């Protein structure tokens, strides 16, 4: 058995040894198609006989509702929001992700710590602080980063939900223009994602292509993990 790896110190209540399951994180900015690919990947994995847990932000029993409530008010500052999200992240890690990994499932997470780090640093939070905070996170077996440019994002966002208050950084950027702020915010986020991508060694995929094309690339990255799981299960016989 190999030790379970963390970005920082191993926190309390976390296993010391690596677990039979696999942790896959799909990262990328708003509107890049993450949720679509998470849904497709879940189908694809299950069809191949792998049990999947899927999770994403604010889905924790502890803090999910609290975050939603806090975001509706006007007194929420970036540091409190960061720590609220960190609470939500930890709760899901402890109650959803780790139990799934113990059970030999594939834990598929729509966003990981990197979206949280990027959102914080573009709002002026010290990168060393937020990265040290998330030192409690296990290193996933695979982080797929879906890269895109702002010009491609705009039509995708407009054709789905439209520009959202938070996804446009309206909470901290000056001016009233949702469009201008969206462009500014997403440009900053993308450059932060790229910095993180080289520091943390993501699998960066070009997400400008068609859904089928991008999904094909994702499957290509996931395949070796499945092969190694298959091997381990046969050795365990």
């Amino acid at each position, binding site marked *: 058995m190999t030790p379970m790896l963390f970005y920082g110190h191993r926190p309390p209540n976390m296993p010391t040894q690596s677990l039979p399951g696999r942790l896959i994180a799909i990262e990328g900015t708003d509107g890049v198609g993450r949720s679509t690919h998470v849904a497709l990947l879940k189908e694809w994995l299950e069809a191949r006989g792998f049990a999947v847990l899927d999770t994403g932000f604010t889905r924790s029993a*502890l*803090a999910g509702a609290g975050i939603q409530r806090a975001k509706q008010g006007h007194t929420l500052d970036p540091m*409190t929001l960061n720590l609220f999200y960190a609470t939500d992240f930890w709760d899901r890690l402890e109650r959803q992700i780790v139990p799934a990994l113990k059970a030999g499932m594939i834990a598929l997470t729509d966003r990981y710590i990197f979206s949280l780090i990027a959102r914080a640093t573009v709002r002026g939070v010290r990168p060393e602080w937020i990265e040290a905070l998330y030192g409690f996170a296990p290193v996933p077996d695979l982080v797929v980063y879906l890269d895109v440019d702002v010009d491609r994002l705009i039509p995708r966002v407009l054709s789905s939900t439209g520009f959202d208050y938070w996804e446009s950084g309206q909470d901290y950027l000056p001016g009233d223009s949702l469009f201008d702020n969206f462009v500014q915010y997403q440009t900053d986020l993308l450059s932060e994602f790229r910095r993180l991508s080289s520091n943390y060694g993501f699998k960066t995929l070009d997400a400008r292509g068609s859904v089928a094309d991008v999904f094909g690339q994702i499957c290509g990255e996931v395949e070796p993990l499945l092969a190694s799981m298959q091997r381990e299960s046969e050795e365990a016989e």
Partner: protein
Amino acid sequence: MVGGGKDGSLAQLKGKLFIVEGVDGSGKSTQIDLLHKWLVSQGYLVVFTEWNSSPIVKATTRRGKREKLLTPMSFSLIHAADFASRVHMQILPALEAGAIVLADRYVYTAYARDGVRGVNREWLRELYSFAPAPTLAFYFDVPLTEAIRRILEGRPALKWYEAGMDLGLSEDPYQSFQIFQGMIRAEYDRIVDEHKLIRIDATQHLIKQQQRVRDAVMPHLRDVLRVDSGSVHTALSQTGLLGRYLDAPATPAEEDV
């Protein structure tokens, strides 16, 4: 930059921050309350904040405690969220304005409680690095048996996390509470040395303790914001009302109307 300068220095802030720490039953809340009343009676502008009281976070903490959802890390993170919210809404603005901030429990409470629960100590200190450094930090030092006697007088129903039941130290809440408080006190001992907290002997007479606190606070009160309560004074004296606390109401603006 949000997230703090490394030193969390108060150098640029005009206000003063005084905080109290100690185990449950150390009498720290009584002492900070007396300090509060004295400062107000002297005409200082005082903002008081206590642990775990942020309007936007405490409902989540309460739910977590009630449903026993909190584990060492989520306990730590949600309390940090509460603290961050109070730094943003209460503590920093008051210090920037040049007021006095009094805090019942500060980051050292998290260092002690979370450290005992197995959270990495270095990580905790980095987590709270955004906290403004206090002007003075008082630690009310009381022997364990005395603190426990004070708390358990009347055998109150101990709360789950307060008694450290989440650590599985004992099935019996009272026994668990005693072991847990002992661990916290030992952790505080290290913290007091590490962060140079002012140790106050909490077995001394209350008046004597308060005198020590005031003596320490006094030299830091120059240039601190005071409330102009002149008009209130006049009004009160005209009606023959001259009380110790009455002469500087907490909300002079409303009283002046």
